[in-house]
């Protein structure tokens, strides 16, 4: 699961807008949300403005409809992480994300009419923009990240575009998600099988993705809470069991790779609560064939985190199996079940991150020590965060991916 990437998007957009922002330290959410509001423009000045479609429980997912963009929601992403091995046995991690941000609640090029569902009827936005006939007119912004991590190097790139059906779009027939020359191209209108192509000056990869497992719905049938009081939530489904084979190209050297991948699909309209600073998220593949999605949303400043002060946080986790079953582990029912402790801090260009963790979930008999493949996996992009492949030891072994934000 990739929760609260809404925050990273928010920061990304802000980072773009405050040009001159080589600022690596993220500003606290309050100012960010204000900036985001400014970006959105005169139509929405309040983060609590519900002009965007709200996330409510009881949503019925339909595919391939829900593989596409939900333009009435504020943000959305298609997020793939992969643990790969080369023919020589070198461990690598690959990441591809395409984010969507709506600048304005009313999208005139909406491909997804959401208003038919009475439960999610959108209140009319006070937007007097007349309908434009131009093919360039849009309210959606796409942002994509791609990264390749080895134990020695961590390369990452970013692309931006407005939505345009010719080069930055998510569409069907067949299903594809693209931003310029970074493309997820499925063979049919289903997610898999698909080919993911990413090209950059210093690295590129072309991966064949396949999965037989059913989709996993996080939270309560895809309604995923982000705070104890239920203020913030998102729609969220994942596919943690993806078989990957393909090739990578690093500085001209081509190698074949195989491995496993994890796709997260999430969309929502609301931000973090006022007190939430950032999160630590894990997608772990255990050697018993199950996968574990786990995150904590921290309620304190990084400085306090660093001092190992007692963390007040919202936890959420789900254990998932290849047959499509899974069970939630969350902090509402079982407050002290999930214990996450940072073990080691790494100083990176973006700041200090806790790159090594101890995770204990007694109810699942999980006691893991998580170590990063490359401690320096800080993303030097318009939004600063840390994301990279990890290895597990302890009660289980395996690989996975970790994302750290808000430091």
């Amino acid at each position, binding site marked *: 699961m990739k929760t609260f990437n809404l925050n990273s998007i928010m920061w990304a957009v802000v980072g773009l807008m405050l*040009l001159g922002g080589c600022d690596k330290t993220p500003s606290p959410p309050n100012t960010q949300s204000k900036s985001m509001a400014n970006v959105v423009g005169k139509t929405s000045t309040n983060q609590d403005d519900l002009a965007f479609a709200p996330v409510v429980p009881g949503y019925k997912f339909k595919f391939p409809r829900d593989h596409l963009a939900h333009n009435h929601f504020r943000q959305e992403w298609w997020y793939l992480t992969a643990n790969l091995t080369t023919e020589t046995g070198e461990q690598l991690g690959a990441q591809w994300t395409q984010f969507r941000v709506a600048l*304005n609640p009313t999208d005139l090029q909406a491909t997804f009419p959401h208003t038919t569902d009475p439960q999610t009827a959108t209140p009319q936005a006070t937007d007097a923009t007349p309908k434009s006939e131009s093919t360039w007119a849009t309210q959606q912004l796409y942002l994509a990240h791609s990264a390749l991590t080895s134990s020695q190097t961590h390369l990452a790139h970013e692309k931006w*575009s407005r939505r345009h059906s010719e080069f930055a779009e998510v569409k069907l027939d067949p299903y594809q998600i693209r931003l310029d020359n970074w493309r997820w191209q499925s063979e049919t209108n289903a997610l898999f099988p698909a080919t993911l192509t990413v090209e950059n000056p210093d690295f590129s990869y072309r991966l064949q993705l396949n999965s037989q497992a059913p989709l996993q719905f996080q939270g309560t049938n895809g309604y995923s809470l982000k705070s104890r009081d239920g203020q913030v939530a998102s729609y969220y489904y994942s596919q943690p069991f993806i078989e990957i084979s393909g090739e990578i190209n690093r500085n001209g050297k081509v190698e074949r790779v195989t491995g496993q991948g994890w796709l997260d699909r999430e969309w929502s309209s609301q931000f973090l609560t006022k007190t939430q600073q950032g999160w630590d998220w894990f997608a772990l593949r255990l050697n018993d064939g199950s996968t574990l999605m786990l995150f904590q949303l921290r309620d304190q400043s990084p400085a306090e985190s660093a001092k190992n002060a007692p963390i007040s946080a919202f936890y959420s986790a789900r254990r998932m199996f290849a047959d499509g079953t899974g069970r939630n582990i969350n902090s509402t029912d079982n407050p002290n079940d999930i214990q996450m402790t940072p073990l080691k801090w790494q100083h990176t260009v973006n700041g200090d991150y806790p790159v090594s963790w101890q995770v204990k979930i007694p109810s699942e008999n999980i006691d893991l020590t998580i170590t990063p493949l490359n401690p320096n996996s800080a993303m030097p992009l318009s939004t600063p965060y840390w994301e990279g492949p990890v290895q597990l030891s302890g009660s289980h072994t395996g690989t996975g991916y970790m994302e750290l934000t808000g430091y």
Partner: protein
Amino acid sequence: MNNKPLTKATPTELKQIELKQTELKQTWLRLTWLSLKVFIAHYRHAPIQAGAILLGIALAVTLLIGVKATNDNAVRSYSDATELLSQRADVLLTPPLAQNTLDESVYFDLRRAGLSQSLAVVNGKISGKNGQFWQLEGSDLIAALTLQKSRSYASTETHSTTSPQMNDLPLADLLNGAPTVIMSRSLADKVAPEGKLVLENSTLDVIAIDDNFGLGSAILADISLAQQLLNMQGRLSYIAMFSERENLPQLKSQLDALGITPQKASFSQQDQGQALIALTRSFHLNLNAMSMLAFVVGLFIAYNGVRYSLMKRQKLLVQLLQQGIERRALMTALMFELILLVVIGSSLGFISGLQLSHWLQPMVAMTLEQMYGAHLLPGIWQWTWLFEAIALTLIAALGACLPLYLDLTRQALAQGANRYQQMQAHRKTHSIQFALACGLLTVAALLFPFSQSYNISLVLLGIVAIAIPLLLPQLLHWGVSALMPLARPGLWQYLLAETRELIAPLSLAMMAILLALSANVSMNTLVGSFEQTLRTWLETRLHADLYIRPPSQRIDTIQTQLMHDPRVSGLYQQWQIEAQLSLPVSTDNPSEQTIPVSLLSRDEFSTRHTSALKESLPTLWQSYFNAPVILVSEPLAIKYQLQLGDSVSLDALKQTGNSQAIIGGIYYDHGNTRNEVIISQPLWQKAQLPLLPVSLAASFHGNEQGSRISEAQLDQLQAQLATELGLSQAEIYSQTKIKTQAIAMFKRTFSITLVLNSLTLIVAAIGLFSACLMLTQARQAPLARLYSLGVSRNALRAMVFMQMLIVVLITCLLAMPTGALLGYLLINKITLQAFGWTIKMIWDWQAYGKAILIALTTCTLAVLLPLYWQTRKPLVASLQQETL
């Protein structure tokens, strides 16, 4: 014989020597300090002296910095000016041959191939209210922002432009095609004070951004809106691409691989503003020259001030010497005083110079935009300028004043006996100067006819400009001497005899005035002649009553309508596309040169009657309409040295099977800096170039048979036609209106030069004032002598005034031929070679008279005021007490 070994100094002796040395040094410092204190007290009693010196320095630095700031900013703008929110493109993909726009799909191909460092741009002219045309630019704003951000990360240049505060822009609305546009603040204040603008019958919201982003007078919109307004759906004007210089060949092959061949788009590398820098060099040189002149004159004022204050302090200095202050200490103190004054004066000048530049900015921006299409960024200043100014002024001031100081400290009381020798020395200097001037003028006269390059002409012009003032002192001598036989013995005789003596001290000031006057007269001549030529040329070119420029999709219907309109007595068309002209390889031209030109064609009548030909082959009209014969504009011909009968090739003619053509005629094209070529309609059609004209013109019948329509009727008709044809006021122009606007624009373009001219003249006048002031002081003795001999005060005043008047009149008289000479060179050499416009030189008596009047008035004031002050005081005291 004495084999005494060299004795070394004992330690105590050494110590004593050391002590003595330090003591001496301390003494020297102490004495210097004492002297300084005395000087400060002196200035406290006579602050005007210090004020005069400061004024001179401040004036010098003001004009120096003012022009330097303006020029520096302009040049910086050329290199830094942004492609509207992103940095200057390295490569442009422009429409293919014979087309005005590019297909959007080219851009999509680029993006899909991963060439994300590219920007799609549409631009065009769009009409507003009241017949104004605006330049509208539209691009993918998100791509523009991304590019700028990534460029500023990568850029190591220290002066990359700052970025707009996008937080203030309603990005959401802009991206969505909302009717919102962006313009620079200064423009918004002028044309959309309420934040709304009407373009093409739509009301748009206006957002103002800082002038820093180089929008100039263009309007920026998102591509989603711009395409609609410009009616360019699915088309682009060009694609700007950004890439490292080393990667350009790779980029080209990538484009080829994508199938982006010349059929789809033309690939052209950009030059980072070099072309613009070269083009505007003359303009900036002109400004620089004037600022240097003003700098010299300002320094002269300061020099005079120093001389005056030294003269006033002479007794004081002598007394200080007698008191025991060493010459060395005195010199040091004087030096220090000068340095202090220079620093203060320069700082004051620096501030007012920046102010001047700020004030000149709009005029300069207008000139540059009109003539070269360059957008000017608002000024930034740097501390280095101040230090440069101080350094320059200091060196110049020290250089000028050092002789004064040395003279002073070397001889306690100069005077009297030496004066005669001084006079002789001056006479000699003046004749040397004259000889030098003649030499320079001869050199210039010999070289000018051979100079084809604009740069050489400019150097020669500089030589002439230096030579002119050098002529003056000797000519003044001769002038006064010529008058002497006319003078009755007595006061008149004395008047003239003394005038001769005055020439030396006044020569510098008068030389400055002469130069400023000549420059003034020559510039006025240039501008006046140009205006006259422009008017005449417009008369020839504009023959129709109304000129119509409808949107391209409507031109066909409008043309048809007009063809069938009984009121129309003549309908004329003009076609236009962009093309490339290739010059053949020759001895001057070792490699083939390709020049982008604007290719026009007109209907036969217009071509025959309104082409304003400068020269043509005798067989022109016989062959023009049925053979590949072209007309080229004068600027094009002059820039690339094209002659009648030359064979060139036009890529646009490829479809005819033969892209070669002969130059059959060269026509005047005043005011246009772009290269232009005209071909006949038959040739145009043969080359399968677009059939639809871009503009139309129509003449109308008057009341009587065969007559033309009257002015009043035309106004009515224009309004009628506008409604009938559904044209906005901006799309239909009357001939008179075009002429008026052209002249108005022309006047605005030259306003900056004229302003600087006047400023320089004023500075020169102040120089004269200070010279007169000093002179009157120095002439107390002669005046007192005359007074004692029985010349009344009024007679004295009249005499002094007459003396000044004679000198000034001779100078003004000399300014006429020199001004004419400079004007001639400016018109027939500089302007012709730099721009390629032939201008007929017309001597403007009024302008000359005006300049002379200013000079005379200022000189009169310059003389009368000090004189009046002088002669009110008791005169004879100076005879008895002061030894001058």
